[in-house]
């Protein structure tokens, strides 16, 4: 069984490309006067979140790597590194991404990590780099276990995950309207992902795809971007700070406050960790489902339209 396979850290190698693309997008917006917005503190926060994500990966990556190598030691399967194995791994890892991402929006424990990616009210290439510092603590590395046990080497799986992340960088932009029809039909695109970042009732909990939008179409979570309803970016309740530490940890702190409040049952405390974001024991907050229901009560004519 091959233990010594190595692949390049493509995310680190892509850093110069990220910087160059951000500069190009910024200059395009300033010259053309269209295609998105930038603001200094928002962009700095996003970039610092990206730097922190890389740092967290270096500091804590050994945990996931140790887990994956443990699984690799258990499995009798070894698919090797032929080109078709890499391609298959990329596709299956994208399916893995879809579910992790969906869990990230539907399970508050995972949302606590992912929320910072949605915390900007802007949508530009710096937003793509506004990544989590706390992914390790979600334990979502277990979702990759089937890939390892099927015989995909951990280094290959992480390589494909890096390519997936790089793909998703370019779709965080308003400078691109829509791609050719066949691309929009199969791939995740700026249009599809703008929907995902929308806080509009219509766009909540939609388009979880990483690379292939077909997963959303298969699992019933696809919502197209409507020309008549521009996405309103950010969180349902937007942050009041640009401090990266508060951005990174605010939802974890929120969970702690909710779980430790007096007078709750054990079930309530557990639900504050694993129920969808917005769940509360006294109904004082709204989940995305409740927001959609309330919206439809006020706009019944929209029932049956995309997202409802």
């Amino acid at each position, binding site marked *: 069984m091959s233990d010594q396979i190595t692949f390049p850290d493509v995310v680190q190698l892509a850093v110069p490309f*990220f*910087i160059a693309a951000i500069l190009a997008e910024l200059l395009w917006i300033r010259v053309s006067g269209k295609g998105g917005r930038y*603001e200094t*503190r928002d962009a700095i926060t996003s970039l610092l979140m990206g730097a922190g994500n*890389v740092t967290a990966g270096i500091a804590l990556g050994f945990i996931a790597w140790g887990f994956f190598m443990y699984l690799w030691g258990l499995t009798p399967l070894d698919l090797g590194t032929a080109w078709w194995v890499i391609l298959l791994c990329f596709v299956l890892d994208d399916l893995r991404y879809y579910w992790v991402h969906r869990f990230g929006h539907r399970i508050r424990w995972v949302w606590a990590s992912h929320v910072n990616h949605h915390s900007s*009210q802007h949508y530009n290439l710096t937003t793509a780099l506004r990544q989590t510092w706390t992914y390790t603590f979600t334990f979502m590395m277990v979702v990759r276990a089937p890939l390892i046990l099927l015989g995909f080497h951990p280094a290959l799986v992480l390589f494909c995950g890096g390519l997936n992340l790089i793909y998703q960088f370019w779709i965080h932009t308003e400078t691109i309207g829509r791609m050719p029809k066949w691309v929009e039909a199969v791939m995740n695109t700026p249009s599809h992902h703008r929907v995902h970042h929308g806080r509009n009732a219509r766009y909540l909990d939609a388009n979880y795809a990483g690379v292939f939008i077909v997963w959303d179409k298969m699992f019933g979570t696809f919502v197209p971007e409507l020309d008549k309803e521009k996405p309103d970016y950010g969180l349902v309740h*937007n942050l*009041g700070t640009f401090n990266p530490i508060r951005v990174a*940890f605010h939802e974890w702190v929120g969970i702690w406050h909710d779980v430790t409040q007096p007078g709750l049952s054990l079930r309530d405390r557990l639900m504050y960790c694993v129920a969808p974001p917005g769940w509360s024991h006294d109904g004082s907050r709204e989940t995305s489902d409740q927001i959609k229901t309330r919206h439809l009560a006020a706009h019944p004519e929209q029932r049956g339209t995309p997202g409802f």
Partner: protein
Amino acid sequence: MPLTVLIALVVLGIAGVALLIHTTGLSQPCRFTTEAEARAAWTREFPLTDVTGVTLCRSGRAALIATPNGPGVVWPMGADSTARKLTNARVTPRDGGLTLHLSDYAAPTVRLYLDPDETALWAERIGTT
């Protein structure tokens, strides 16, 4: 990629992008020019809360929102805005206005830029909430 090269790239990249954004005039905070704008910004955050009054400060950098359940504040977050209800808020004076201390990890303080006569009025309206 060697770690030193990566660190240099990240530091210079962030600094360069930040400098370019700032020098192209994109650091100006949002201003509310009308009470309607401030009300809309509040409603964007709290669509279920009735608004009974809006007090827009002269600088346009915040608005006090009156609701049946007590006051709230809406203020710029960069080019955009956010809002909070002033439950358990603490108010302290400072040069050029007030500072609100909220019991919210994601919005710990709000600096309000107010004229002297506004400062007294806002402090009174916010009170000890």
